[in-house]
């Protein structure tokens, strides 16, 4: 016979105040200590479940969800950092790969240079915009006019400086006349960055909230700081592409939350991840790496203390690129001495030896410069900038130069940078592709007094070197012009290269064909779920 123990009523236990306090104390300590660990487990963006992984059959169709941490807007004339732009617009040409500058006709069907390289005639492809209107040569003419206005199109203004005029030859043919003989590479780079936008919608106000292109995807919905949903453009010129029916970009304010969302299957891919996550994700996800951008240390030569060229040269020798790549970029990236990627035709690795990290030389040069021995660096939330500055700060301290780091909001940082108020900073520069003269397109590198780092002190030698690079057509001319540009940049030393900052995306198994172009834009045209 089974014996059931009698149920006894347990006396009601009261908890003493001391015990209660001890319990609270222990819980509080545990919570505070555990906060960093728990942060990794949560998403702060309020995004709920649903991976959206209802894949399509046979490698076509279907839907993917990509997590990103970038802000966004829709005007391709005002940004070179918005990753989704590429999905809305067709450019005149695309490049074959991140390091492959073979031009693939897209918006342009063909193009032909005149013998003296003073003009190019572009035959446009017969295609339609998302609105259903046809692409015309008049749209290109209107686009060129806007591109040449720095107020209305900052991203394209400097790269378009070689164009004298644009003329619509017929409905689908446009001719660009150049200011001077211009190398083909520069024109092709420009074509790869020139988006087709209908003339009547090509203004900042219209494009701020709604894209108006002819690219592979249409805008389905957009909730600022939450999500962006794109649907397939059935009228895209490249038949059968894109493969995906729908792409959702989901925004994450926190990188850890983004990675956690990927690991938990909440998103199918995470894009533009910090490089420290590479090791963590390598075995479980497909990683897509591309050359990305460059980190540079900028010194403001328009005001003390860095209006002293010898001082700038001394500081440039105190930048330990190898250590920065190892500790801040987790071994990913390559050293650069100025704003030329290793794939650039102007990149000359010899400068890494002759002008590389050498604290003893830096100390000697610092003393010889007789300049001030303190400066303040501004820093926003540019990934890795704070760590890079702290490494530079520690090295400079060893040679008797005191660098104070002043953290600030990213918006304030950009305002101060563009107002030429920062003494020095670390900032990213885009890939100059195959045209070294494109080095001059950033605000810190403009070959005019608008240069926010040099102002009125922008060196004449630099302006001349950029102009020479813009007009060097033959190989010999180009070699001479690139060598001179390198010489000037290293001598003036206001834009000191640190390293490349590769782009990193991670995808779950079964997603293929996601690539990144040389401009660091995601290419989703051939992405598919297998």
């Amino acid at each position: 016979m089974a014996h059931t123990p009698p149920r006894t009523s347990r006396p009601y236990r009261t908890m003493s105040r001391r015990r209660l306090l001890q319990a609270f104390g222990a819980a509080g300590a545990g919570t505070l200590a555990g906060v960093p660990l728990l942060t990794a487990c949560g998403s702060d963006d309020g995004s709920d479940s649903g991976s959206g992984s209802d894949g399509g059959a046979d490698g076509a169709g279907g839907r993917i969800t990509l997590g990103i941490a970038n802000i966004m807007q829709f005007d391709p004339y005002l940004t070179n950092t918005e990753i989704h732009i590429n999905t809305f617009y067709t450019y005149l040409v695309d490049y074959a790969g991140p390091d492959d500058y073979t031009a693939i006709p897209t918006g342009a069907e063909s193009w032909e240079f005149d013998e003296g390289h003073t003009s190019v005639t572009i035959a446009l492809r017969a295609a339609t915009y998302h609105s259903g209107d046809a692409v015309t040569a008049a749209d290109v003419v209107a686009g060129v006019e806007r591109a040449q206005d720095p107020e209305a199109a900052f991203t394209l203004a400097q790269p378009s400086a070689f164009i004298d005029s644009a003329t619509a030859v017929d409905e689908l043919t446009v001719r660009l006349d150049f200011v001077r003989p211009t190398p083909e590479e520069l024109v092709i780079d420009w074509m790869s960055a020139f988006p087709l936008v209908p003339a009547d919608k090509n203004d900042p106000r219209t494009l701020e909230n709604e894209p108006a292109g002819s690219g592979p995807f249409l805008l389905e919905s957009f909730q600022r700081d939450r999500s962006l949903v794109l649907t397939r453009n059935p009228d895209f010129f490249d038949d059968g592409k894109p493969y995906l029916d729908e792409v959702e970009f989901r925004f994450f304010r926190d990188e850890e939350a983004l990675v956690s969302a990927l690991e938990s299957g909440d998103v199918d891919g995470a894009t533009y991840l910090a490089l420290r996550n590479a090791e963590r994700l390598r075995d479980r996800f497909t990683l897509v790496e591309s050359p990305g951008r460059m980190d540079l240390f900028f010194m403001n030569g328009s005001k003390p203390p860095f209006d002293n060229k010898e001082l700038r040269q001394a500081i440039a020798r105190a930048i330990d690129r190898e250590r920065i790549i190892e500790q801040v970029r987790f071994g990913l990236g390559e050293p650069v001495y100025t704003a030329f990627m290793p794939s650039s035709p102007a990149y000359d690795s010899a400068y890494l030896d002759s002008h590389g990290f050498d604290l003893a030389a830096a100390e000697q040069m610092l003393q010889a410069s007789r300049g001030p021995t303190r400066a303040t660096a501004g820093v926003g939330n540019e990934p890795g900038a704070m760590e890079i500055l702290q490494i530079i700060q520690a090295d400079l301290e060893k040679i008797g130069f005191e660098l104070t780091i002043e953290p600030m909001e990213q918006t304030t940082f950009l305002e101060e940078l563009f107002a030429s108020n920062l003494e020095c900073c670390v900032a990213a520069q885009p890939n100059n592709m195959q045209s070294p003269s494109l080095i001059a397109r950033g605000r810190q590198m403009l070959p005019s007094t608008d240069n926010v780092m040099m102002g009125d002190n922008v060196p004449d030698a630099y302006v001349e070197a950029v102009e020479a690079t813009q007009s060097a057509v033959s190989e010999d001319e180009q070699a001479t012009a690139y060598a001179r540009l390198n010489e000037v940049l290293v001598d003036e030393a206001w834009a000191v290269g640190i390293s490349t900052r590769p782009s990193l995306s991670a995808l779950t198994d079964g997603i293929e064909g996601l690539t990144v172009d040389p401009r660091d834009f995601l290419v989703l045209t051939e992405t598919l779920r297998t």
Partner: protein
Amino acid sequence: MTEGTTQAMTRDTDAAASPSRRRRFSWARRFARSRSALVGAAGLVLLIMLAVFAPWIAPFEPNEQGAQHLLGPSTSHLLGTDELGRDIASRVIHGTRASLVVGFGAAAVGALLGVPLGLVAGYLGRWADTIAMRLIDLLLAVPGILLALVIITMLGPGRLNLILAIGIGAIPEFGRLTRAATLALRERDFVVASRGMGASTPDTMFRTVLPNVLGPIVVQLVVTASLAVVVEAGLSLLGLGTPPPAPSWGAMLQDARSYLYQSPWYGVFPGLCLALTVFCLDRIGRGLQLAVGTAMTDGTRGRTV
């Protein structure tokens, strides 16, 4: 005079003084009877020792970047190294300074500005009370952390600015507490007598009333310090605290968030220290509150008539 006479006189003097002295230090005895308060006090003393003797205790310079980065705890680096190869133990030890200096500095700023405000409002009443209280209402209308954020944004990051930002946010608590205590005392006999004997208003306020409201103010000082330590960590977590490379627990927690996968232990130790400091200050505040609260009912302190 013989030695025996002297001893007898001393005993008599002690005996005469003992009731007053006993009353004066009764709060200390009550505080000492609370075991948790004593644990808190011992912890705080330990933290103060760490802060004062940090350069001698810490195994490395807190900003020295020589070692490999993100190392785990080992015999050479007890708590491991951070993302720039700095010794975490040394930075945690030196970080005690930032936390305690900002904590007590902010509490002192709050007390120095809030107590006179409350004293004037409570003692003078009428228009002075109205102006002071509206000023306090104005400060109370803005949440403390938001006020600190605005001040830091205006003044820029830095330890002194941090102290000012958090301290200004603490003014209302000190002001209201002092005003309430002063209101309760201003018509008491010893205060009326002080005025009757010709003492000036400032003299009566600061030499007669203030010593008798110090008890709750001291408690508030400890509570505010505890809150300020947490706010300092919070602001550092947002990148608005102590500027780099100076070590701060909040900034270390902020940095550690980015390296949870590579070194999960990185954020644990600054977090534990922060929790320990808040726990100690909380225990001391609680003990003082009980001790001083009882002592306040015993009688008056300071200059009485």
